[in-house]
């Protein structure tokens, strides 16, 4: 691969990373995952090209070294995806946490939070719990009444089984 240079003699791989694709935070997080398997030195230019020097702690072959470097790449993709999703869900997460914390704070706090949500452009519909809806309704034909065997007409009830003694 173009951006992975393997130096098998030194048990090292030099990985060139484009900081526009993978920011520094992603590189730190990905390297951190591999701290038990390899040594990491980060160098280069943070604006154009970041060099990640990875040296395996144990002596390994060329294929394994390349595999390790590619795993590091995968980890960067993994963290990038996580970071994007996390940024997308940030507003929702914050709203949920605020709601949860304000549950027992009373009306004033809830109104304050609702105001903040509106400012943030929240589109959640307000639910009016001030009046309880009447759950009862008219039943002129009497079909809403639950059916029980005792109320059945013209149906033979099954005979009760008697236990025979002797």
């Amino acid at each position: 691969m173009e951006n992975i240079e393997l130096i098998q003699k030194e048990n090292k791989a030099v990985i060139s990373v484009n900081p526009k694709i993978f920011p520094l935070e992603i590189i730190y997080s990905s390297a951190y995952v591999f701290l038990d398997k390899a040594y990491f030195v980060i160098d280069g230019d943070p604006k154009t090209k970041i060099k990640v020097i990875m040296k395996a702690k144990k002596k390994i072959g060329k294929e394994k070294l390349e595999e390790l470097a590619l795993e590091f790449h995968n980890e960067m993709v993994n963290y990038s995806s996580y970071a994007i999703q996390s940024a997308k869900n940030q507003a929702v997460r914050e709203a949920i946490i605020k709601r949860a914390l304000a549950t027992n704070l009373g009306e004033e706090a809830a109104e304050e939070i609702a105001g903040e949500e509106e400012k943030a452009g929240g589109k959640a519909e307000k639910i009016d719990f001030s009046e309880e809806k009447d759950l009862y309704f008219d039943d002129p034909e009497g079909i809403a009444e639950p059916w029980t065997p005792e109320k059945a007409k013209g149906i033979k009830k099954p005979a009760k089984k008697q236990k025979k003694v002797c």
Partner: protein
Amino acid sequence: MCIKVDFGKGEVLLSINKTFYPKALVEQAIREMPLEGEISKKEEKGRVVLRVKPASGIDLEALGFEFFNYLLFLVKNKAG
């Protein structure tokens, strides 16, 4: 290369890029890592250059890499 081992003098030179490893964290790592021996520090062109001369019998290159790994640990934990 960021790690240069001088076997003749029994020392290792670490050239640390301050953009990636802030100076404060480098100093913290020096305080916290059990680097027994002579340590000298100087700054040049956006880098901190450490010269570590530990007691004999220590793998100098491994010591240098361990220092960088510890720096990464500090950077990551500071960043969260």
